[in-house]
């Protein structure tokens, strides 16, 4: 029986989109997934090398290109291996089977006599003079995948599961031109947008003379509707004019976020779209003890290290766009809607940028370039955002309030659980109908999407990981979607998983304390999922966890666990830290089960990154509002520094027979909650609002 086709292969069944043999000795593989610093292209090459029986060196990768690769939507949600990797594996297996069938015909032998070594066909182990490239002319790769190709058993894999050096890293370490920022196209000019402060703001008087003079070089103004850009050959001149424009352009109907809207509690007063997911909440406690706690988190920035950049050329009715966004096909659809061009007239290519961690300004910068390019046919346009532009205008991860309440049985275990959430959307991506920023300023802005969030079928947005994996008889999520946030909000690494896991795993610790139980023992007593138990037990052993370690001493340790989206990778973290006025992280231990691991060192790298970024969110990060977004640079939005990073030890539980699962986001929640629990252990009192800044720690200690 044929294997069912993985989603992306079902959507893109033509085999040559996945695998082709462009020249002798080389194999080209296509993936809709893009490199965002997570090493995905290396992992895809490992998969292809094993399934096709060729050396890695023979493989070149096409990635994220509307003209050349499968459409796999977004590189997001830790799904590249689970879906994209599995799809590529099957496509390669199907291609291998087609070549073997052709070899049987040409050689007049039986299939069972054949094997493949580095692309060459062997018959009973002996060379036959045939290989992929001699046979390629007779194999029709415009055929559709069938799923009939036999995938390699795990035991026969050589490259999958082996530590493999990232193919892109050397070029980054030697300073080569690899990023979109490094691209040069003949005749290219630079453009900088004079940003519309908010949707609906109208462009008033423009002091053109002063702006042009400030450039100290030739620049011009390009305008359509409320979209105004400065364009010129010299980037420094364009930049100087852009700086001047901030003070020499008038806007009407300006609305900016206020300090009141900065704090998550503001959400509680807002109109919302309400939903209940799960069993109805019981009217009374039925003799059980009720316990409730409220947790919150402010808005976060992606704060990518490189400002967003995009290039575009509109020539002979065709628009070509270069972008570092996570989804070239959804961006193309947004450009169709924004510019009124037909999809067949637009090609979007992915070029690497810095880590994005979700929906940052990448799509917007590409659209900026495209909008300007439409006004300047034949001229390649490059837009590189300024640091302030990135911080102020990138979509933010929404603030959230999470209220958890449980009914406890006599033994102190929860038998009824409610997680109530207030949040704006986590998905204003172009693929969800969201508009690119520049579209708002055009003469006829496209319609706004209906308010919504990521559906639970796709892991949920604000509701992601809001349901505990523990054995609890009745559980429900109450979701208050606040449709009008003070700033544009969208996807950041893990979406609602971080605030939800922070809330529920801190709450579990509070329940354990009430029950007089050790946090590890308590968790195990309400967990029957064996893979969950394994990571909790493993991390406790790694950290030499001992029940009953005394708290309130200024030194603390905490544990937390989550299965990402309740259906992907399992991870548990233990954090050890010290608190004086400031929190100093000392050590983080992490055990993760991500199913079949393609590149163990790559997985560990991602897990480390997730831990450090989450630690940074928890200890330092919140977007400030003060007559506008007041977090506009690295001083007003500080992140974790080298001297503040803890030691990290990670172990993988490599369950080889399971589907490979993504790991970019799995540690975000457990790290946050383990820090929260460790701080509570260190101080003897709990802080439920993030970030855990020095001011907040001091205020909490003074209250005690």
């Amino acid at each position, binding site marked *: 029986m044929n294997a069912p086709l993985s989603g992306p292969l079902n959507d893109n069944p033509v085999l040559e989109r996945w695998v082709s043999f462009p020249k002798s000795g080389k194999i080209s593989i296509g993936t809709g997934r893009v490199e965002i610093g997570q090493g995905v292209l290396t992992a895809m090459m490992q998969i292809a090398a094993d399934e096709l029986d060729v050396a890695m060196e023979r493989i070149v990768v096409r990635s994220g290109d509307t003209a050349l690769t499968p459409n796999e939507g977004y590189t997001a949600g830790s799904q590249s291996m689970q879906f994209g990797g599995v799809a590529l594996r099957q496509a390669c297996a199907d291609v291998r089977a087609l070549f073997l069938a052709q070899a049987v015909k040409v050689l007049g032998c039986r299939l069972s006599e054949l094997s493949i070594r580095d692309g060459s066909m062997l018959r009973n182990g002996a060379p036959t003079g045939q290989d992929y490239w001699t046979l390629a002319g007779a194999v029709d790769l415009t055929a559709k995948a069938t799923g009939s190709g036999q995938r390699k058993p795990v035991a026969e894999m050589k490259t999958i599961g082996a530590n493999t050096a990232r193919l892109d*890293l050397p070029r980054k370490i030697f*300073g080569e031109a690899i990023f979109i*920022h490094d691209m040069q196209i003949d005749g290219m000019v630079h453009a900088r947008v004079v940003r519309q402060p908010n949707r609906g703001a109208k462009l008033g008087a423009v002091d053109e003379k002063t702006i042009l003079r400030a450039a100290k070089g030739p620049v011009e103004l390009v305008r359509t509707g409320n979209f105004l850009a400065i364009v010129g050959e010299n980037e420094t001149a364009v930049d100087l004019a852009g700086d001047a424009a901030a003070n020499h352009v008038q806007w009407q109907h300006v609305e900016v976020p206020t300090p009141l809207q900065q704090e998550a509690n503001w959400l509680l007063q807002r109109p919302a779209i309400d939903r209940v997911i799960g069993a109805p909440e019981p009217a009374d406690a039925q003799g059980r003890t009720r316990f409730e706690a409220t947790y919150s988190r402010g808005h976060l920035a992606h704060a990518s*290290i490189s400002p967003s950049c995009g290039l575009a050329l509109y020539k002979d009715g065709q628009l070509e766009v270069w972008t570092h966004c996570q989804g070239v096909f959804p961006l193309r659809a947004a450009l169709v809607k924004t510019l009124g061009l037909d999809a067949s007239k637009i090609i979007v290519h992915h070029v690497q940028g810095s880590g994005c961690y979700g929906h940052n300004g990448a799509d917007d910068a590409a659209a900026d370039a495209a909008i300007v390019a439409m006004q300047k046919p034949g001229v390649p346009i490059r837009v590189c955002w300024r640091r302030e532009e990135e911080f102020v205008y990138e979509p933010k991860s929404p603030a959230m309030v999470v209220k958890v309440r449980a009914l406890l049985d006599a033994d102190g275990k929860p038998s009824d659980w409610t997680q109530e959430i207030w949040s704006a959307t986590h998905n204003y991506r172009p693929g969800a109908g969201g508009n690119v920023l520049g579209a708002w300023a055009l003469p006829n802005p496209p319609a706004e999407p209906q308010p919504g969030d990521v559906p639970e079928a796709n892991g949920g947005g604000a509701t992601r990981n809001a349901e505990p994996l523990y054995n609890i008889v009745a559980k429900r999520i109450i979701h208050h979607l606040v449709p009008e946030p003070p700033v544009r909000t969208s996807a950041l690494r893990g979406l609602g998983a971080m605030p939800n896991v922070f809330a529920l795993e801190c709450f579990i610790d509070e329940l354990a304390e009430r029950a007089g139980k050790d946090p590890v023992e308590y968790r195990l007593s309400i967990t029957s999922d064996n893979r969950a138990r394994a990571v909790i037990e493993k991390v406790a052993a790694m950290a030499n966890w001992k029940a009953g370690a005394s708290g309130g001493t200024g030194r603390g340790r905490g544990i937390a666990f989550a299965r990402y989206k309740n259906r992907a990778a399992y991870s548990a973290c233990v954090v050890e830290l010290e608190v004086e006025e400031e929190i100093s992280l000392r050590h983080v231990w992490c055990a993760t089960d991500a199913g079949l691991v393609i590149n163990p060192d790559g997985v560990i790298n991602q897990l480390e990154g997730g831990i450090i970024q989450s630690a940074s969110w928890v200890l330092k990060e919140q977007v400030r509002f003060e007559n506008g977004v007041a977090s506009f640079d690295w001083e007003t939005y500080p992140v974790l520094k080298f*001297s503040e990073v803890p030691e990290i030890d990670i172990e993988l539980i490599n369950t080889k027979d399971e589907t490979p699962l993504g790991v970019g986001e799995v540690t975000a929640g457990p790290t946050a909650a383990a820090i929260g629990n460790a701080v509570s252990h260190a101080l003897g009192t709990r802080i439920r609002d993030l970030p855990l800044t020095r001011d907040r720690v001091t205020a909490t200690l003074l209250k005690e």
Partner: protein
Amino acid sequence: MPKKFQFTVNGKPVSIALDNEETPLLAVLRTELGLVGTRFGCGLEQCGCCTVLIDGKPEKCCAKPVWSVAGKSIVTVEGLGTPERPHPLQQAFIEEQAGQCGYCLTGILISAKALLDKNPKPTRGEIAAALDDNICRCGSHNRILRAVEKAATQMRGATP
């Protein structure tokens, strides 16, 4: 009238004529000289992506006017090593797989070189302190610290 500026980059003399003498050194390196290994991150001298050595000292060059480096000696990541002849730091970064998106790495390599030039045997704490001017957003910090330690050890071995 364009003005002329002279300095050296990676040991080679450079002479450049510019209309605007306030043009940042970073723009000159990237645009005029095609040395794109030094990255633009903020333009505010905050993130360290644009760190280069100026007369041996690590400095951010995204807001440093070109006139201020006239006559000086500049080293960029391109002057550190090549794939054929990597600097021990570059070799160690590859061995430790020290990086994710890699955008910050060239600035970090320069900061690390400046540290090892004056302190060949730094502690982990001293390395971290020396890199606090460089932001890594992906969370590759521990690998980077390990790589610098490793390079330091190798360099001491090579030139005792």
